[in-house]
C-alpha cells in the first residue's frame, strides 16, 4: 500500500484523484454507486451567483474518442448549493472544491466571497464569456486571466484558489504565469477544447449551441503537453486533467508536473472509473516501489536531456 495522499496549498487530499466539474453534479448520484468519500476530492458542478437554466438540448455529442458538451452552466445557484448540498458533501469526507463561474468581475468576486471559508478550495472557471469585452472568455488573454484571478482571490481570502485554465489560448505557459501573478494558489488544466460535430443528414451541428467543449480520451496528449508546459512555467501546484481513463493516464499527468488529477468524461464511460483509477495507482506504485505518490510529480525527463 503506497501513500497516495497529496497536499495542495495546505489542503490534504486522501489521493490525487478528483472528480472534474460538470461530470459529477454535487456527488449525490455517484454516491449511490460507491462511497465518494474515498475520492481525493470533488469539484462541484459549476456554480453561479444566480440559478441558471443552461442551454437548449441536445447538449452532448460524441465523436471518436471524445465527446462534446454544451450544458451552459445549468445550476441551482451558489446559495442553494450552500444551503442544501454543501454540508452533505463535506460529510462524505471528500475534499470539497467549489467550481465557480461568472459573467463579470463582480460576479467572480461575489461568488468567491460567498464561498470563502466554507469549502476546502475554490476552482475558477474562466472559460466563460466576459460581457464587458464583447463576450471573449476571461481565460483567453493573460491580462484578463490575471485580472479575474486577482479579483477572485480578493473574494477568496481564506480559501485556496485554483484557476482552471482554458486550452483555447495562444500560450498556456503565459496564462499559467498570469494566474499565478493574479494570486492563484494553484492552477488546473485543461478545460475543454472548443469543437463542433455535424449531423450530415440535417446539415446542422448536433449540439443546440452549435459548438461544444471537447473532452475525453482523445484530448489526453494535448492535456499532458499543456500540463507539462504550465507546470514548468509556475511555482504553484498544478492539477492536470483531460482524457484520463485509467491509472496509467493519471501517472502521465503526475510525471508531467501535476500534483493531482481530475477525471471527467471517464465517469460517463464507466461510473466506477475513479475508484478503479485509485486502486490502479496503488497497484502501480507498489509494482514500481513508489512509497509516496507525490514523489512522481514532475519526474519527467525530456528526450535529449
Amino acid at each position, binding site marked *: 500500500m503506497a501513500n497516495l495522499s497529496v497536499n495542495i496549498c495546505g489542503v490534504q487530499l486522501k489521493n490525487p484523484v478528483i472528480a472534474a466539474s*460538470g*461530470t*459529477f*453534479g454535487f456527488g*449525490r*448520484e*455517484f454516491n*449511490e*454507486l460507491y462511497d465518494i468519500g474515498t475520492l481525493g476530492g470533488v469539484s462541484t*458542478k459549476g456554480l453561479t451567483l444566480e440559478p441558471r*437554466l*443552461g442551454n437548449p*438540448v*441536445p*447538449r*452532448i*455529442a*460524441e465523436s*471518436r*474518442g*471524445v*465527446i462534446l*458538451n454544451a*450544458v451552459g452552466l*445549468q445550476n441551482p445557484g451558489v446559495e442553494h448549493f450552500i444551503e442544501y448540498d454543501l454540508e452533505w458533501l463535506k460529510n462524505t469526507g471528500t475534499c470539497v472544491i467549489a467550481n465557480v463561474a461568472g459573467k463579470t468581475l463582480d460576479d467572480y468576486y461575489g461568488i468567491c466571497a460567498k464561498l470563502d471559508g466554507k469549502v476546502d478550495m475554490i476552482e475558477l472557471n474562466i472559460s466563460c464569456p466576459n460581457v464587458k469585452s464583447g463576450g471573449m472568455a476571461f481565460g483567453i488573454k493573460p491580462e484578463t486571466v490575471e485580472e479575474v484571478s486577482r479579483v477572485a482571490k480578493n473574494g477568496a481570502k481564506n480559501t485556496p484558489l485554483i484557476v482552471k485554465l482554458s486550452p483555447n489560448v495562444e500560450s498556456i505557459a503565459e496564462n499559467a504565469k498570469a494566474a499565478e501573478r493574479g494570486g492563484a494558489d494553484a492552477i488546473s488544466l485543461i478545460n475543454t477544447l472548443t469543437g463542433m460535430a455535424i449531423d450530415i443528414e440535417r446539415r446542422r451541428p*448536433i449540439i443546440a449551441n452549435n459548438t461544444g467543449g471537447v473532452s*475525453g*480520451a*482523445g484530448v489526453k496528449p494535448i492535456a499532458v503537453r499543456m500540463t507539462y508546459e504550465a507546470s514548468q512555467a509556475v511555482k504553484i501546484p498544478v492539477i492536470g486533467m483531460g482524457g484520463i481513463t485509467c491509472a496509467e493516464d493519471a501517472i502521465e499527468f503526475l510525471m508531467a508536473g501535476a500534483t493531482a488529477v481530475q477525471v471527467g*468524461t*471517464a*465517469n*460517463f*464511460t*464507466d*461510473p*466506477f472509473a475513479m475508484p478503479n483509477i485509485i486502486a490502479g495507482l496503488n497497484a502501480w506504485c507498489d509494482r514500481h516501489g513508489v512509497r509516496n505518490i507525490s514523489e512522481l510529480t514532475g519526474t519527467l525527463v525530456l528526450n535529449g536531456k
Partner: protein
Amino acid sequence: MKDYIATVVKNERIAENIHAVTFALEEKPRVRCGQFGDIFVGGTHLLRRPIAVCKVDGKEVTFCYQIKGEGTQKLKEMGTGTKLKVLMPLGNGFFVEETEKKVALVGGGVGVFPLISVLRQYAGEKEISAYIGYRNAGAVCGVDEFEKADKFVAVTDDGSYGEKMNAVQAFAKDLEKGNRPDVVLACGPTPMLRALKAVTEKENLPCFVSLEERMGCGIGACLVCVCDLTNGRKARVCKDGPVFNANEVTL
C-alpha cells in the same frame, strides 16, 4: 442500480432496422417497467447507449434498439457470448395507481418497446388496450407481446398493416367510441406525444409519457439530458424521468 456484466445470449433483427439483444446478467435484476439500461459498446465510444428495457425474464434482459449510428451498429455486431457492461435499472419507470383499472398504451417507433415492459408487468392485473403505430408493415414488431393485451390496435403510416393512421388517431378514435381508460401511458416521437397530450388534456385524462434525449452520465449528475417543465424549471430525463406526467412537461 448496478453495473452488470452482461453476456449476449441472443442478438437478432426483429424488424426493419430494429434489433433485439438479450443479455444474461449475473443475477436477476429488479426492474420496473419503463426503466432503462445504459449499455457500454466499447471501442472509441465514450458514451453508453441508454435503451429502454423491453423484457426481463429471470436473469435475462432484452433491449430492442434501432440501428442509428456507429454505436448501435457496433451493438448489432455483438455475437453470442460477448460480454459488456450494462448499468441498470435507471430512471423512474411507469407506475399505474391501484385505482386505475383501465390502461391505454400509445406507442410509436422505438417507443413501443418500453410499453411491452408495461404490458408484461400489468397484464392480468389491469385491463390494457394498446394502440401502436408503425411506419409500415416492414417495421411491425412486438406483435406477439401486444396480442397479450386485452385490446391491440396496430396501425401504419402507409396502411400496409392495419389501418392507415397514427397511434394517437387510433387511440382518439376508440376514445370517441366510449372506450375511455383511467390512465394513458405513452412513448414515441415527440410530435406523437405532443398530439397525444392535446387529446388527453382536452379529455382530462391522466397521461404519462416516456421521453428520449441524448444523455451523458445516465444517472442524473451531468445535467445533459434535460427537458422543460411547465413550471419553468428543468428536469433530468435520465433521473427525474424518463417518464413524466404529460401535464408537467413541455413537449
